[in-house]
């Protein structure tokens, strides 16, 4: 790339200036160009959001700035200037002086990003000792100082801890402390919260934000989550296939986006206040292979506004308006994000669903308890882990029930118990009124057949040695009620139903893309005409564009087949999009239940409210208006759950009674139930 | 003093020697240390000289601390050495039942007491007491013979002992098997039942038993071998200075009170323990040993060793049978029926190429002698056929013998019996038609020449269609598993075995191994004629008896004869002495008192 777009004039406050950065990687005899002519800059106190699909080159850009490309990677063009210093010309030794000192980085996975055999004190002190030439003691003191900065109580005592002794959120704070130790000018946060639960994500992001402000740092926030961007970034660079597709101030971007890719990206995410009846937009095709250099616009093959010009020549990133640049031959007319549109529509249609009539429920779960014996070794004391603690709910025929909750709250356990992979410790599961639990052996398996499951990880849930045809046929074979040719016919029907070509039949799972695999998984689940489908995190392993395809498909099939389904996800938006009714779980308990809109717009449980508040929405106004961290702290251990109301340890409204008495699930009317001594809403 | 026989050539029988022994050097440099290798794996662990069977071969410095009555080696021959014996030659009465032994009056114990007739009687009483406890308590015991047949033993004067026997023996036999193994012991010092106990009368069997038990027990406390005052009372040229109980290595120093013919000339003799023949060889190669017996697999290294300063000399041991034992009772595949046929044994013997094996670089490389009977062709008791093989190597003859007796010989295939029956031209009694000539053979896993010669034999057998399955085994294993006497339950498991040499001693009658009742008759060979010939060797009068026995056994083939390998001794060129004092090492006798460093 030659002339790069100059986004504004070089000002004295620009800390970091990247121009025309091009990175090449040589690996396994292939040459990739994961970053092509990227230009960006950032000033002190500013947050630049770098957003894009997986593989779009976000991390690689960060790595190039840090001078830490993977083996085989080189910067082949462009410049990186930090405070007027050309970093590219630095020797490795000099570059080392920059890292951790002038630019610091926060990584995604805090478990693997901390050395398990070193104390956190050592790890935080390390950069101080290197860059500040501090003594062991001084560095240690500094470590305590930054640790308190990131909000860890009694920091001096924690310095001697090892990473595994900390919770995920704490570890992420330690990571941040490590990055801050030398008060860098620029901090690059690469997906700093992707591994965290939403509640924790909100806390960490707020912390980062505050620190940046206080210390006057510049921050590059790398994420794939448009919601995070909307709430935290001052400016946004949208990346696609190693290039910047669009760059603008956050408000500008959401209010008047121009690049079709930006638009499509947003259009394919389900939103909390999504119109449930509207289909999500899906971006067709796959991102381009970065090893092939094509002349045209990299998005051309997937773009709905494509023309011959697009395939002939790649558009350059041009600042069409002050502070707003995009690289497109056929920009969309300035328009606000599809989210805002959808939002507006949804607000209009505050619908009321008919309260379930007298039809008996298809699936009824009552008083379900699942506890695990966890023993500490051979002679260790036995402990009981309460994964599900007395959950009851019903799903009417044809309805979809959604389960949400933080990680570890027992959603999957509930799902596994319902389909019979686990035996409940207590409670009943009735399918069409018949209690499934006493049934064992062949009879039990047969009676459970109407309940089928769709798994989370499309890579793990298909036997890698079986061909697609055999995989889909398996439930038919197990049911054994059709001959081979009938089975084959059914397999073909199913393929058709999930929108796969028959050519995949002879393929092995690894020859399929993630989306295709998930479709195969769905086809398999549907093979025996189940009446109930349990889908555990059906889309959380999928990339945005694929995710919308699968969501659409599930939605269509629900409607077409009249399926009764249970959708489990930690993503309230996904659940709300798919489900008629939603149950919110907390630490093995159902704390609130009701229609999606009721839950979203009139949450009665403080936990639900906090959860909703923590979910980042791709709407800058909404995001900025949100309170800082609504639910604080972390999920307590399920081995010794808090007495009374399990949420009380994190509840802002908690009172003495909460510790003593367990609140019951009470109906607020219209099927909206809540288990709280101090509900936010009554009736 | 000087070497006993300056200018002498070693005493040998025949010309089977290998290498040479230089004449004794004229100038003697007194003192010095001699390092000598103990037989690998045979670390001494017992000291009392009347050895129980378990410890045979593992006693400390046999004959060098306590002299035997008769020294049965002169150079490389088994002739009695009158000079080194502590008694005059025995006198037999005409009925051969009374033997008078006169001890030389020149010998004294190291504590100054003379060696007297009672010391011999004491020793014999101890043997009797020991055998009463357990038949294995004296290595040289043959049930029914000495001392069972000892009517009386008496010290008739201070230096004379008279033995009265109930049966008569061939003097050659009795000399070798009994008198040669008797060792006078210091009764004045040892005849007690505990360390500080009083001297008791050993003629009382109860006392003899107590004494034996005491000595036997003391003899197992290896840590005290060199310190226990008991063992310091000796009459040989050396005393035990140090004993390493962990390895069995020990050091001898001259017995200053020695009263015999040749006092020790070097200051110290170190017996170094070795765990393998290779270790011995390596040490020799590194020049770290003064004297060593080498494994025959190092024969072709001898010229190299010579150039680095060693003399070497090899000689087969006399009175040694080196043969493939046959199991006449193995009924598997009718082996007993087949092996009972003399023609078949002859055919097998015809397959053994003794001259070839001796010559082969892969087997003996020259260091062995042909052997066709228990007695060597060069000995005074040589068999009638001398050194001419009764059944010389000839595949053709073997084949013809088989064919003449009703076998269909298929070269490299399966020879089968086609004419069953007991007739002259038939296979033989009990051998059915279609019988295959196949059997197994176990051989000792060391030395390498054993495997090599058996392989050659098996391969030759293949040429006439005889199939022999073979496997190498530890010698011990073969003794305890493939010996019909001790493991009768396994008698059908082996047909032929080669456990290496069996030593018959200086008077090599084979009665122990081939008489019908022989204690070591592993394969249960039985022949009336052999029995009567052996009986003659033992109890007859005829000095030719042994030769007659050997002639018959050479022809009747109780075993298949193999060459007799040389024992090879190497010693530093700086070490000199009477040539016999080196030649006798090949026969297992050590006389270090004759060695000295050349000035």
């Amino acid at each position, binding site marked *: 790339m030659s002339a790069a777009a100059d986004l504004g004039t070089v000002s004295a406050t620009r800390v970091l200036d990247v121009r025309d950065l091009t990175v090449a990687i040589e690996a396994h005899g292939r040459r990739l160009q994961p970053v092509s002519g990227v230009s960006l800059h950032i000033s002190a106190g500013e947050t630049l959001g770098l957003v894009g699909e997986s593989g779009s080159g976000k991390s690689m850009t960060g790595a190039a700035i840090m001078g830490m490309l993977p083996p085989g990677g080189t910067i082949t063009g462009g410049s990186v200037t930090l405070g007027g210093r050309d970093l590219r010309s630095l020797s490795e030794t000099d570059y080392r002086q920059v890292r951790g000192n002038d630019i610091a980085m926060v990584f995604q996975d805090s478990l693997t990003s901390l050395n398990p055999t070193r104390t956190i004190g050592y790890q935080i002190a390390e950069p101080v000792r290197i860059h500040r030439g501090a003594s062991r003691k001084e560095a240690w003191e500094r470590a305590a100082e930054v640790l308190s900065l990131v909000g860890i109580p009694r920091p001096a005592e924690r310095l001697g801890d090892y990473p595994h002794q900390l919770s995920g959120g704490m570890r992420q704070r330690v990571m941040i402390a490590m990055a801050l130790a030398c008060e860098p000018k620029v901090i690059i946060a690469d997906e700093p919260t992707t591994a965290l639960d939403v509640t924790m994500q909100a806390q960490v992001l707020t912390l980062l934000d505050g620190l940046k402000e206080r210390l006057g740092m510049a921050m590059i926030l790398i994420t794939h989550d448009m919601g995070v961007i909307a709430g935290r970034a001052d400016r946004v660079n949208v990346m696609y296939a190693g290039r910047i597709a669009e760059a603008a101030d956050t408000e500008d971007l959401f209010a008047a986006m121009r690049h079709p890719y930006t638009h499509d990206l947003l259009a394919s995410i389900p939103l909390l206040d999504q119109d449930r009846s509207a289909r999500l937009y899906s971006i067709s095709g796959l991102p381009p292979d970065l090893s092939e250099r094509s002349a045209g616009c990299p998005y051309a093959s997937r773009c709905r506004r494509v023309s011959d010009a697009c395939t002939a020549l790649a558009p350059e990133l041009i600042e069409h308006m002050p502070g707003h640049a995009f690289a497109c031959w056929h920009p969309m007319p300035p328009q606000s994000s599809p989210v805002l549109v959808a939002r507006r529509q949804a607000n209009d249609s505050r619908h009321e669903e008919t309260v379930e009539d007298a039809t008996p429920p298809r699936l009824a779960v009552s008083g379900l308890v699942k506890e695990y014996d966890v023993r500490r070794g051979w002679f260790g004391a036995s402990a009981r882990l309460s994964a599900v603690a007395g959950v009851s709910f019903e799903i009417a025929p044809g309805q979809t029930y959604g389960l949400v909750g933080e990680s570890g709250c027992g959603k999957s356990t509930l799902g596994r118990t319902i389909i019979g992979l686990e035996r409940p410790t207590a409670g009943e599961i009735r399918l069409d009124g018949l209690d499934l639990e006493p049934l064992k052996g062949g009879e039990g398996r047969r009676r459970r057949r109407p309940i089928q499951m769709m798994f989370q990880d499309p890579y793990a849930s298909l036997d890698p040695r079986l061909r697609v045809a055999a995989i889909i046929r398996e*439930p038919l074979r197990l049911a054994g009620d059709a001959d081979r040719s009938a089975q084959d016919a059914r397999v073909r029907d199913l393929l058709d139903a999930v929108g796969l070509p028959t050519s995949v039949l002879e393929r092995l799972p690894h020859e399929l893309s993630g989306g295709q695999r998930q479709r195969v998984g769905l086809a398999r689940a549907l093979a025996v005409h189940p009446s109930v489908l349990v889908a555990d995190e059906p889309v959380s392993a999928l990339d945005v564009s694929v995710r919308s395809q699968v969501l659409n498909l599930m939605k269509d099939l629900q409607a077409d087949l009249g399926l009764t389904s249970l959708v489990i996800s930690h993503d309230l938006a996904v659940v709300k999009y798919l489900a008629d009714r939603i149950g919110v779980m907390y630490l093995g308990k159902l704390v609130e239940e009701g229609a999606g809109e009721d839950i979203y717009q009139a949450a009665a449980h403080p936990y639900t409210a906090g959860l909703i508040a923590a979910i980042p929405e791709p709407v800058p106004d909404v995001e900025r208006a949100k309170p800082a961290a609504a639910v604080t702290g972390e999920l307590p251990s399920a081995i010794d759950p808090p007495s009374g109301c399990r949420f009380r340890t994190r509840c802002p409204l908690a009172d003495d009674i909460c510790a003593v008495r367990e609140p019951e699930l009470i109906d607020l009317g219209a099927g909206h139930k809540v288990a709280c001594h101090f509900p936010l809403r009554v009736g | 003093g000087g070497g006993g026989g300056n200018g002498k050539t070693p005493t040998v029988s025949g010309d089977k020697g290998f290498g040479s022994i230089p004449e004794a050097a004229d100038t003697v440099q007194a003192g010095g240390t001699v390092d000598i290798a103990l037989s690998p794996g045979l670390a001494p662990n017992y000291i009392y000289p009347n050895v129980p069977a378990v410890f045979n071969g593992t006693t400390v410095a046999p004959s060098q601390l306590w002299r035997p009555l008769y020294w049965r080696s002169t150079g490389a021959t088994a002739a009695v050495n009158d000079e080194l014996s502590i008694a005059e030659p025995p006198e037999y009465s005409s009925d051969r039942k009374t033997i008078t032994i006169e001890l030389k009056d020149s010998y004294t114990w190291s504590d100054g007491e003379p060696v007297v007739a009672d010391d011999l009687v004491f020793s014999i009483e101890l043997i009797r007491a020991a055998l009463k406890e357990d038949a294995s308590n004296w290595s040289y015991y043959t049930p029914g013979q000495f001392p069972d047949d000892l009517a009386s033993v008496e010290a008739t004067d201070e230096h004379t002992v008279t033995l009265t026997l109930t049966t008569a023996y061939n003097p050659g036999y009795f000399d070798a098997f009994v008198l040669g193994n008797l060792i006078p012991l210091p009764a004045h010092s040892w005849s007690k039942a505990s360390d500080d106990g009083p001297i008791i009368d050993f003629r009382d069997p109860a006392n003899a038993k107590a004494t034996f038990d005491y000595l036997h027990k003391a003899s197992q406390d290896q840590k005290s071998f060199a310190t226990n005052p008991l063992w310091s009372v000796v009459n040989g040229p050396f005393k035990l200075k140090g004993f390493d109980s962990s390895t069995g290595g020990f050091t001898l120093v001259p017995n200053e009170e020695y009263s015999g013919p040749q006092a020790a000339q070097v200051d110290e003799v170190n017996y170094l323990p070795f765990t393998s023949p290779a270790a011995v060889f390596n040490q020799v190669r590194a020049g770290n040993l003064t004297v060593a017996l080498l494994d025959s697999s190092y024969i072709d290294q001898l010229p190299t060793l010579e150039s680095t300063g060693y003399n070497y000399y090899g000689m087969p041991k006399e009175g040694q049978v080196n043969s493939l034992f046959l199991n006449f009772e193995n009924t598997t595949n009718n082996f007993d029926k087949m092996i009972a046929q003399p023609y078949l044994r002859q055919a097998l013997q015809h397959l053994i190429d003794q001259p070839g094996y001796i010559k082969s670089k892969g087997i003996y490389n020259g260091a062995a002698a042909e052997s066709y009977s228990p007695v060597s062709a060069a000995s005074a008791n040589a068999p009638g056929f001398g050194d001419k093989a009764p059944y010389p190597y000839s595949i053709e003859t073997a084949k013809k013998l088989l064919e003449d007796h009703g076998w269909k010989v298929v070269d490299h295939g399966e020879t089968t019996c086609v004419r069953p029956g007991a007739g002259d031209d038939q296979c033989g009694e009990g051998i059915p038609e279609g019988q295959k000539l196949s059997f197994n053979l176990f051989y000792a896993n060391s030395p390498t020449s054993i495997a090599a010669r058996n392989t050659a034999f098996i391969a030759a057998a293949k040429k006439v269609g005889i199939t022999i399955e073979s496997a190498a085994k530890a010698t011990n294993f073969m003794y305890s598993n493939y010996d019909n006497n001790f493991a009768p339950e396994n008698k059908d498991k082996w047909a032929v075995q080669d456990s290496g040499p069996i030593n018959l001693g200086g008077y090599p009658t084979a009665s122990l191994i081939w008489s019908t009742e022989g204690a070591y008759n592993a394969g249960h060979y039985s022949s009336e004629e052999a029995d009567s010939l052996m009986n003659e060797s033992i109890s007859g009068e005829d000095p030719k008896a042994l030769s007659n026995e050997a002639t018959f056994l050479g022809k009747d083939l109780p075993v298949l004869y193999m060459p007799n390998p040389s024992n090879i001794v190497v010693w530093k060129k700086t070490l000199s002495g009477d040539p016999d004092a080196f030649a006798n090492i090949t026969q297992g006798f050590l006389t270090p008192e004759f060695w000295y460093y050349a000035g």
Partner: protein
Amino acid sequence: MSAGADSGQVVGAAEVLAGRRRVELLRRLRTGSPFGGTIGLVGVVLALAIVAVCFLGPLIYSTNQVDVDPLKAFLPPSGEHPLGTDSQGFDVLGRLMEGGRASLQIGVFAALVATVIGTLYGATAGLAGGIVDAVMMRFVDVMMSVPFLFVVLIVSTKFNSSAWSLSLILGLFSWLIPARLVRAEVLSLKTRDYVLAARSMGASGPSLVFRHLIPNSLGVVVVNITFQVADAILAVATLGFLGFGLSYPHTDWGGQLSAGVNYLLSGYWWLIYPVGLCLVAVVLAFNLIGEALRDTLDRRRTL
């Protein structure tokens, strides 16, 4: 993504870590293959070459490996005997082929015996779980702690070595590693989503085992076989070297080498180096093949 996977933390972390580490260890002992894709090829070519020489060689270069000629012992290499002759006068090149056949046969057979036993044992333990598994694995622990070579040597004193008995003895004492591998594999497969999926569709025990568990653990088993062959060949060679090999008319490489070593100082190098190098080559070949197979397997897994 899910906290469930981490629940091991609770369950006696130390035990789990230690146990897992040990299994991991066995599995990984031979990882790392910087030759790229060629290593498998090198291994296969090497193995095929050795197999061809040993099994087909005699067709082209036929020698008398039956008749001993003691007088032709230790002839140095010449036109007539490219690798000279040994102590029996056998042509060494021909002897190499003879010994190679035995070594390969024993190696392969021992590996198969070990694999069959190990697979059945490991799969049973893994599937049964609970107390059965605990007892079975404790037994494996015990057997693994008894030094294998010692026991084989001790047992060998009682047997007459034949190709069969050797491979049987080796096989009977080397099934432990495959047993552990297969058990670990079955345990991990048991909780895989696709196995859960099959269970949730109503698949019964045998159906799970035969359709999912066995085919999917086969990879590990096959990889292990190749390593096991290499190990068995080495073990046989060691046995042969220590005097428990085959006897005439049979021979094996370890025995040949051991016989040759007796003449180390005599300069008969042709008795040592050809057979030594053959041994190295064949063990190397099987290791390389195993390495490549495992690489492929791992790559497929991480896809």
